[in-house]
């Protein structure tokens, strides 16, 4: 949070806009390979932004966010394949699926707290993953399926090209970042942080902390569903892998490395992890070992994540 509410506001927005402008400026300069990679990273960063709303701001650690990502992915994918949805309605269906499922899971999982909350969300996500495999006839869970080309055009432009992938991912990422920045500085964002910091006190100030937490889970699910739908529509593929536990751990890692409770942390974490694995895997087969070592170092020397350390050391006003 910022110091006094009025200070830091312009700088916070300025930095966010500057980062988005830099990503836009890189667009025509990047080779195709990097455009496609960065497009994926930006979509995953939307996922991380959603995760950060729940974990970084509200202080709830979920181990089941793959479920909400997959909900968006499959709502868009199946909607396009079986329902003939075009890109925009398919994307909206993904947001709704993520938010709706998160609200349902949240209503049940929030009866618990701490470690029990982690376990319950993990169990829900595993149940979702197994259901995708069980209904394989319909979901093509094990080998996945390609989305029909008709669903992958926006305003007459095909999403398949590297250029369009980057542009679409950037537009969605920019939108997600601006919404998240606004949310973090909104009255609801302030109360979410209060719940994270001292839930008993927040309740004794008159806040319905149960409702705040449910709202955070639902908003977080909506972002995750949006990311899943965007991933499916941009890459043209849906499969059960994205519902596996790995995709519940990844957003946690991205947020931890990038900086929990910071607006730009999710992007920084996702970019860092993605290129770390990308670069090291080109050098050695033991790239996971290198990635693991780097993670240990980051955790040791920047326990608040990269942006968290920047905030602590140089820029207290960082959103």
């Amino acid at each position, binding site marked *: *949070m910022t110091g006094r509410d009025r200070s830091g506001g312009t700088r916070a927005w300025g930095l966010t806009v500057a980062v988005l402008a830099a990503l836009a400026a890189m667009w025509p300069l990047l080779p195709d390979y990097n455009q496609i990679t960065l497009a994926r990273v930006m979509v995953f960063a939307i996922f991380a932004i959603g995760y950060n709303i729940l974990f970084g701001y509200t202080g709830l650690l979920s181990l089941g966010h793959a479920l909400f990502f997959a909900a968006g992915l499959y709502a868009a994918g199946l909607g396009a394949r079986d329902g003939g949805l075009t890109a925009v309605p398919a994307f909206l269906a993904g947001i709704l699926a993520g938010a709706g499922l998160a609200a349902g899971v949240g209503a049940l999982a929030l009866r618990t707290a701490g470690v029990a909350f982690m376990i319950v969300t993990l169990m829900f996500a595993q149940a979702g993953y197994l259901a995708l495999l069980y209904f394989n006839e319909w979901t093509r869970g094990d080998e996945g399926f390609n989305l029909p080309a008709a669903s992958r055009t926006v305003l007459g432009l095909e999403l398949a090209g590297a250029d369009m992938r980057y542009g679409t991912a950037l537009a969605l990422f920019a939108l997600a970042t601006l919404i998240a920045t606004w949310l973090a500085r909104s009255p609801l964002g302030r109360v979410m942080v209060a719940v994270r910091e001292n839930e008993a006190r927040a309740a004794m100030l*008159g806040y*319905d902390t149960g409702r705040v937490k449910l709202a955070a889970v639902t908003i977080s699910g909506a972002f995750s569903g949006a990311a899943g739908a965007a991933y499916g529509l941009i890459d043209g593929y849906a499969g059960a892998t994205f519902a596996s536990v790995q995709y519940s751990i990844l957003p946690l890692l991205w947020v931890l490395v990038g900086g929990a409770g910071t607006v730009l942390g999710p992007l920084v974490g996702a970019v860092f992890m993605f290129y770390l694995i990308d670069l090291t895997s080109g050098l050695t087969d033991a790239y996971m070992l290198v990635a693991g070592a780097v993670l240990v170092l980051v955790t040791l020397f920047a326990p608040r994540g990269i942006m968290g350390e920047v905030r602590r050391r140089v820029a207290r006003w960082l959103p």
Partner: protein
Amino acid sequence: MAAMSGPLLRAEGLTRDYGGLRAVDHVDFTLQEGEIRALIGPNGAGKTTFVGLISGRIRPSAGRVRFMGRDVTALPAHRRMRLGMAYTFQITSIFANLTVWDNVALAAQARRGAQGLAEATDAALARVGLLDRAGQVAGDLAYGHQRLLELAMGIAQAPRLLILDEPTQGLSDPEIRDFVALIRDIARGATVLLIEHNMDVVMQLATRITVLNFGAILAEGAPEEIRADARVRAAYLGG
């Protein structure tokens, strides 16, 4: 202030059991608008449990609570706060990692929403003398300032009833003097119910005193009556 017939707060037969132990035992209690009521009694008398029942932090085993003429027994704590109660914890409870300003802003926002938030926050901070520390992280404040911060949060909530659980505990004598003046000032706009061990503070502040012992009301009255009460002396001296 809205016209209201009857007392600000009324507890009827309020009871709380913990296993076999009855911490609060059929307490009938009435608080009039504008009072500064001190709640005193030996350790373990059930004072904190009693205000917990009033504020809704603790569910009663039996009995009812009426606030501003309305039965609030079934309402959770956060709903009672919205109706116009404020509560400060016995052990300092602030948002230690947030700034002083954000702490008070959270309190003000709970009551009034985002409108006029900055003005209300600044005003509450100015009243306790912490405005120049607004940008500091609350956890870095000295203990006495943290207690003042809690009072500022209470002020920002603009309550009808302010419940203070041992507000002067751990403060130095000069700090206590300022605190007493501040509470008296707050009491011009709100009814105050405070648990207090420091008898000087009680005698300076209270318009009425309620003495709790073994979860029941032992005596109630004006400060001079309580001072003269033989049963109260016996309870304190372990007679």
